[in-house]
């Protein structure tokens, strides 16, 4: 793997770390199975692209993308809380609706952004020579900021109420927590993070495409679970760190699967990429147990 490919994996890993933090918020903290991500990720990208093409500052455009994601998350939560639609179905409905909405926002299935200003403009050299490390570094800034804000939020009273809502809604209500409000706020934060990731993603891809959302939730979930398995923790500071590590590792596995000449040598082809990635992830998840197995063998 070359340095550029390694930094490329870090870059997309860090982008998906924001998705993973969002998924952590909905699935783990609020216990809300949320598939809105597949729609809110491209929503963030679409809003960003349209803003930038119309001359709006890219930082503002990122904020607009995140705000749009927050609205999508609130809509899912509202469908569940107020209309009593099952969580999973509410999120599927919003995800499906967002496909059409995203097409409306973009006006076409693809909005190219090559040559348009981005949050990296001004930092990347004219010949792109430093792009490969500047972009991941800027995105790292976003991820660190998001992590610290989340860590802080969960130490506030509102944050603790939100954790209580996910852990035991009835108990939380008995303690005077407005659980409906907590779900709406939590889902807004979750999808704002995911949409922000979408806005950053389109800036590294050269364009916003309607298809970028496919599989977002799968990658987000994989990142959360890889992180939790490798860094089992109860403290929120460590949990948020774990999902970030999980997201970066997931993307590194894909880079490994892409770059391995050894795999090529034993007959694996480009069509096996997804399979190889899945096997690598399984191996990573079982490493602690495999290690324990060999350890036991040695001592017995």
């Amino acid at each position, binding site marked *: *793997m070359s340095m550029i490919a390694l930094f*490329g994996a870090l870059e997309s890993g860090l982008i998906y770390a924001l998705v993973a933090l969002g998924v952590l918020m909905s699935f783990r903290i609020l216990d809300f199975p949320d598939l809105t991500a597949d729609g809110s990720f491209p929503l963030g990208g679409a809003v960003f692209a349209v803003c930038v093409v119309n001359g709006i500052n890219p930082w503002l455009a990122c904020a607009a993308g995140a705000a749009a994601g927050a609205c999508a998350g609130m809509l899912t939560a509202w469908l569940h809380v107020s209309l009593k639609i099952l969580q999973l179905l509410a999120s599927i409905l919003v995800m499906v609706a967002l496909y059409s909405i995203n097409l409306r926002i973009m006006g076409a*299935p693809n909005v190219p952004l*090559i040559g348009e200003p981005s949050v990296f403009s001004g930092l990347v050299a004219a010949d792109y020579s430093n792009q490969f490390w500047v972009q991941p570094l800027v995105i790292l800034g976003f991820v660190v900021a998001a992590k610290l804000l989340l860590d802080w939020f969960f130490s506030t009273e509102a944050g603790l109420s939100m954790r209580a809502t996910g852990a035991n809604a009835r108990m939380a209500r008995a303690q005077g927590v407005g659980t409906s409000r907590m779900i709406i706020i939590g889902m807004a934060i979750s999808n704002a993070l995911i949409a922000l990731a979408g806005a950053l993603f389109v800036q590294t891809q050269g*364009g916003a*495409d*309607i298809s970028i959302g496919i599989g977002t939730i799968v*990658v987000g979930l994989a990142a959360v679970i890889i992180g939790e398995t490798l860094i089992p923790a109860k403290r929120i500071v460590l949990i948020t760190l774990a999902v970030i590590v999980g997201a970066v590792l997931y993307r590194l596995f894909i880079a490994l699967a*892409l770059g391995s000449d050894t795999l090529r040598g034993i007959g694996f082809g480009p069509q096996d990429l997804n399979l190889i990635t899945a096997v690598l992830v399984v191996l990573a998840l079982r490493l602690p147990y495999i290690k324990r197995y060999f350890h036991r063998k040695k001592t017995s």
Partner: protein
Amino acid sequence: MKLSFAYSALAALVLAACSPAEQKPAAEQGASAASAAAPAEVKTVAITAIVEHPALDAVRKGVIEELAAQGYKEGENLKIDFQSAQGNTATAGQIAKKFAGDNPDVIVAIATPSAQSMVAATKTIPVVFSAVTDPVAAKLVPSWEASKTNVTGLSDELPLQPQIDLMKKIIPNLKSVGYVYSPGEVNSTIVLDQLKTALDKDGITVAAAPAQRTTDVPTAARSLKGKADLIYTSLDNNVVSAYESLYKVAVENKLPLVASDTDSVKRGAVAALGINYHDMGVATGKVVARILKGEKAGDIAPQRMDKLDLYVSKKNAAEQGITLSDAVLKEAKEVQE
């Protein structure tokens, strides 16, 4: 630390994959890209496609065959690195980064999303796109002139007038054209706009039937009954994948199918006037060879395919309630009985 083994194993895995021989500082990479006439005997061509499907695979095979014909043989003096993004744009981005880091002599990027992420990832390595309908709208190149950047390539934009002429020949009193397409595919929506503008001049209407997923294709086609004289399909990935289901609807409702993908005639279309994707691969290979021989990508203008082949099927025509005229049959490159 009971988990330390796990971490060190992971770290080793990642480090082992970063072989030091391939780690070049960015400055050095820029320099080696500038001096393209390096004496290296083995040339490397990296090819990526957003997804693997028959038309895109035909492009890739055409490129490799043409390079072989020009004396660049895989395994001898040419190394081909092919990567498929398996339909995932994030993976397309990572492939782009991998290629930018590997620093091959030429990169071939097949289909719009792959080409966009490749052009976003490198400004120095020559990129030859292929099977992109509108490279100017996709901002791969500023215009149809030689770009003066590192990008050139082949477009699969079909001249629409010959398609319209064909439709008129098949249904002489054509009043309305049904168009089944995915609203999520940029190539298909471009064709819809062009179709509307071109047919409007002749007083022919377009009945658009959007199908978001492959499974929506038959429903969309059925909605055209009574609204259209025939169904026209462009190179829409969803529609082409579901062509057999379209054929069933066409036979049931006597709505003749006219395609722009020549392979679709085998799968149920009455006629197709289209680009042969293998030929497009060959044309792409010619551009790649010119760059390998020392020309700059920026000095080669992006090209369209000008040769179209007509394929027809008498059997499908009869099933879909029409007879093909002798004039059409005479024009055809291939007639299926």
